[in-house]
């Protein structure tokens, strides 16, 4: 029975994440190129955090789209530099579902996401990254 529940949970989570990823992809508009990856995590409560490190190359504009649930604004995402100094949090922008980052010179960054405790939403968090060259 427990195995059945785990399987059923797994199935529903996948379907959930797939739907959210499709909704989120709309924020990576055609002028941006997808980095070819989808970052997904199942967050069961606002105390849980999904986190990854990446490199933002210089002379590039990146767009991060962050979604949970079928409406915008359920996910808080933060971008830190390698020394964990905050670069941006969408909490300061009414949980904006996407934000652009203009990168002058290459930097390693840490991106984290968590559910907004004040909003109801799915436990599946999806982050997408797009990029384009900066106009000189």
């Amino acid at each position, binding site marked *: 029975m*427990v*195995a059945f529940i785990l399987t059923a949970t797994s199935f529903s*989570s996948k379907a959930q*994440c797939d739907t959210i990823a499709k909704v989120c992809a709309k924020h990576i508009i055609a002028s941006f190129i997808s980095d070819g*990856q989808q970052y997904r995590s199942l967050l069961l409560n606002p105390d849980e955090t999904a986190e990854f490190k990446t490199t933002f190359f210089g002379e590039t504009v990146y767009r991060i789209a962050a979604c949970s649930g079928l409406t915008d604004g359920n996910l808080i995402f933060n*971008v830190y530099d390698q020394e964990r100094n905050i670069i941006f949090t969408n909490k300061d*922008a009414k949980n904006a579902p996407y*934000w652009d980052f203009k990168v002058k010179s290459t930097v390693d960054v840490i991106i984290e996401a968590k559910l907004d405790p004040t909003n109801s939403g799915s436990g599946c968090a999806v982050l997408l990254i797009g990029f384009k060259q900066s106009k000189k």
Partner: protein
Amino acid sequence: MFLCLLDKVQVMSKAIKIAWCVVISLSMLVITSCGGGSDKKKADTEEIPEDTAKSVSAGVLNVGGELFSIPSPLQTAMLMQSSGAAFDKSILNSKENIAQYATDYSKALNLGIYGADLGYVSMYGKTQESIVYLTAVKKLADETGVSGAFDVKTMKRFQDNMSNKDSMMVLVGLAYSSGDAFLKTNKRFDISGLILVGGWIESLNFAISANKIKSSEAVKRRIADQKQSLNSIIKLLSQFETKTNYTELIDGLKDLSKVYDTIEYKFISEKPETDMATKTTTINSHTDVNITKEQLDLITEKVESIRKKIVNPAKA
């Protein structure tokens, strides 16, 4: 707790929700009425660590609660073109090599490599070569079970936009993203990881090849900027190291990592600027890098050795 979870599952139909309620209620009864119920639960989940189990259920490429991100190889293909490096067909993986790729391991790595090559030829507006590499990518995608990423509709879009490099880059990014999602959803994390690794190796191959012909600060910098990605790749692959072939690849990457450890990096933190109106933050921090010719030569040698074993396994 389960009711809270139910509320969160917005995509489920009402009927499924009701059935779900019955199943959960019954199972809770079974668990709470049986002595040692918690032990049973532990036994059932013992084989998979909590973090991994959580990640698997969401289709996440995730170890120890950590996600991995590898920059797109298309970015380095774009840098090659914008930095004035001449198109060089000889640096790409020959389409003739495809017959050698017999295992899923080999196919996945080379699917990443051919995808990067497709981006490279598209960036230089080489229509004929784009067709060749799109065909190679399609073949390996079909054979590794990611055919959905290159379905009839997507292939038609590629064909219609073959002469438009911007559209081609967008389409390549979308197709690989779609493949990545499919593989993660179906728990094929090894294949998903290998595609990323193949693409990363090929992007580094673009840079070291261009650097050998005509060195430029931008290209040298791009080579030096791979330390974070390399560390992520090693960590990502290490979860599969008991599988055939992985050990040699991981050892090669760890060896490469030792060279990166000798490069001098100095991070300089500066305050970012955010423009709320345009939803844009400018990152002003930067890292000064000092990479020597000896370090570049060593990286070149090691990357070429790793790549050779991937693209030409029969001769390795």
